[in-house]
């Protein structure tokens, strides 16, 4: 296990470095440079002198490598630079938003797993039955409906069917936990819908594979109740790929939150990112993207380590 962990972490470090390099390089693709982008924002006139001054202030007149090292060491200290838009440290606003988005993502993946696993298992143990057919159509529909449309559909359904619209906006979980959960439930459902379909598909295929294994036949042959055969021998082994996929999807969910936060007016990281894109606030965009990407790299590492710990075959492969 230690060898596997060392190897996996060995791959993790260059990935982290490359993620920061990619974000840095992409942000330098701005035609001209940030200083020019700020000054020419509203077609305002500016002098060459102003441009030089602003470049010096932003530090963009220094060699690119120096800028990169400066930015990365800042990241390590939790310093994400100064927002172009409101002039304060990016971290200040970002810090408030991160817990909101994490809560939304956890609720989303939680709902997805809770609904998807039973659906996938049912569909696998009765292949080509009506349940299987329904669940397959449902999962294909699920991965085809874009998140923003399922969000709108859910709101529409509630208005039409129940004449009820949950209060939009956001209540802090520590101040009013009940209102908070009530508000986040629907967004989480819309967010997790795609993943629900995806995880159900994976559950079905991995469960079907396991049902054909010799040890399943042995378990039945020795007279074990079908329920126990399925739960102890079947699902227990099918859980590994489900776990991996759920871990990966959890990372992906941070992408989906951008759209969901916009529809349901939730003040999370996604809203911050969209606002920053409108405002051309590059330090904030840069900070959000790098934080999301690094969280995903870390989550993937944890999933891989967990997988290796649970399944010895992976360690020695």
């Amino acid at each position, binding site marked *: 296990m230690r060898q596997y962990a060392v190897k996996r972490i060995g791959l993790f470090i260059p990935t982290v470095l490359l*993620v920061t390099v990619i974000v840095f390089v992409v942000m330098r693709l701005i035609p001209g440079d940030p200083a020019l982008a700020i000054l020419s924002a509203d077609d305002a006139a500016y002098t060459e002198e102003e441009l030089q001054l602003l470049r010096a202030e932003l530090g963009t007149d220094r060699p690119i490598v120096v800028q990169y090292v400066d930015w990365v060491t800042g990241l390590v200290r939790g310093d994400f630079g100064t927002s172009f838009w409101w002039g304060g440290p990016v971290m200040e606003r970002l810090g408030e938003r991160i817990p909101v988005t994490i809560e939304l993502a956890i609720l989303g993946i939680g709902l997805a797993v809770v609904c998807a696993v039973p659906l996938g298992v049912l569909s696998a143990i009765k292949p080509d039955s009506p349940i299987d057919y329904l669940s397959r159509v449902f999962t294909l529909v699920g991965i085809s*409906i*874009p*998140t*923003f449309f399922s969000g709108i559909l859910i709101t529409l359904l509630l208005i*039409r069917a129940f004449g009820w619209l949950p209060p939009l906006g956001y209540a802090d979980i520590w101040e009013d936990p009940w209102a908070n959960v009530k508000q986040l439930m629907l967004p989480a459902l819309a967010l997790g819908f795609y993943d629900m379909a995806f995880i159900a598909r994976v559950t079905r295929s991995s469960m079907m594979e396991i049902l054909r294994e010799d040890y399943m036949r042995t378990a039945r042959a020795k007279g074990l109740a079908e329920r126990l055969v399925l739960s102890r021998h079947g699902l227990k082994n099918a859980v590994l790929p489900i776990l991996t996929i759920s871990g990966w999807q959890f990372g992906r969910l941070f992408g989906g939150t951008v759209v969901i936060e916009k529809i349901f007016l939730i003040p999370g990281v996604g809203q911050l990112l*969209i606002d920053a*894109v409108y405002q051309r606030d590059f330090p904030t965009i840069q900070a959000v993207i790098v934080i*999301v990407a690094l969280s995903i790299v870390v989550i993937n590492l944890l999933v891989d380590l967990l997988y290796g710990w649970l399944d010895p075959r992976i360690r020695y492969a």
Partner: protein
Amino acid sequence: MTTNTGQAAPGITEEQQLDIRPKQGTLKRIGSFCRTKPLGAVSAAIIILTIFTAVFAPVLAPYDPLDLNHEPFIAPSPSAWLGADELGRDVFSRVIFGARVSMYVGLASVLIGISLGTIIGIISAYVGGIIDLTIQRIVDALMAFPAIIMALGLTAVLGSSVNNIVAALVVILLPGAIRVIRAQVLSIKELDYTLAAQAIGARPWRIMLRHILPNVVASYIVLSTITLGLAIIIEASLTFLGVGISADIPTWGGMLTEGAQKYIRTAWWLAVFPGMAISIVVFAINFLGDALRDTLDPRLRGR
């Protein structure tokens, strides 16, 4: 790929093997695809119809998508099939014209992205060594960015013209394509015919072009189909978020933005029809992708 040798590979049924026998004529193969995968064939028809709609939009649409032809907020009726929006523009005509952007952006980005990914994937796997290692680490890093967030970042920097969105999508589709093709080439590389070609002294580029490339075509087709749905959804999401294609052009994502959301209590047709258009097209694409994967490349099943 083993399936080209004409012998049944283990785990592949007789029927599937017949489907991929190279001697079969194209028409016959399409015919047998329709018979074994009727839903896949219906999906293919939907996609072809959508492309047709996109190309002939000006002829097919009853009204100009930008003109104010109706009273605002007319419900679906014989004169305005899918109703009218808050300005009185014809929703049906706008949905038809919306197919143009979705199809153009989707097809262009998939064609460029998957082709580039295939080339890089083949080189990465065949050349190996430090080149492979470097490419794979970059792929790892690129895969850490959720598609929509990467797209937001790139359009913020590049600006949001149609072609810049295609460029952003190419960057998003690349790593996945490289990874799938590389994995496949790694096994093709060890097959007898590749070794034989090496033994008679064929140059590396010739082996990659003449012996490896033709054998990843099936994966190329399957990958392109599957990622087309993703590309269409991302373009629509960007436009929906207001950072994609400008509001002057009718797009499915654009039709779903704030206006449609604001009026959802009174004018449900503003959001439902464009949303359905995207969902049906993406659904058809995913279904076709599944069917093609089963027929062309059984080894990819379950992924």
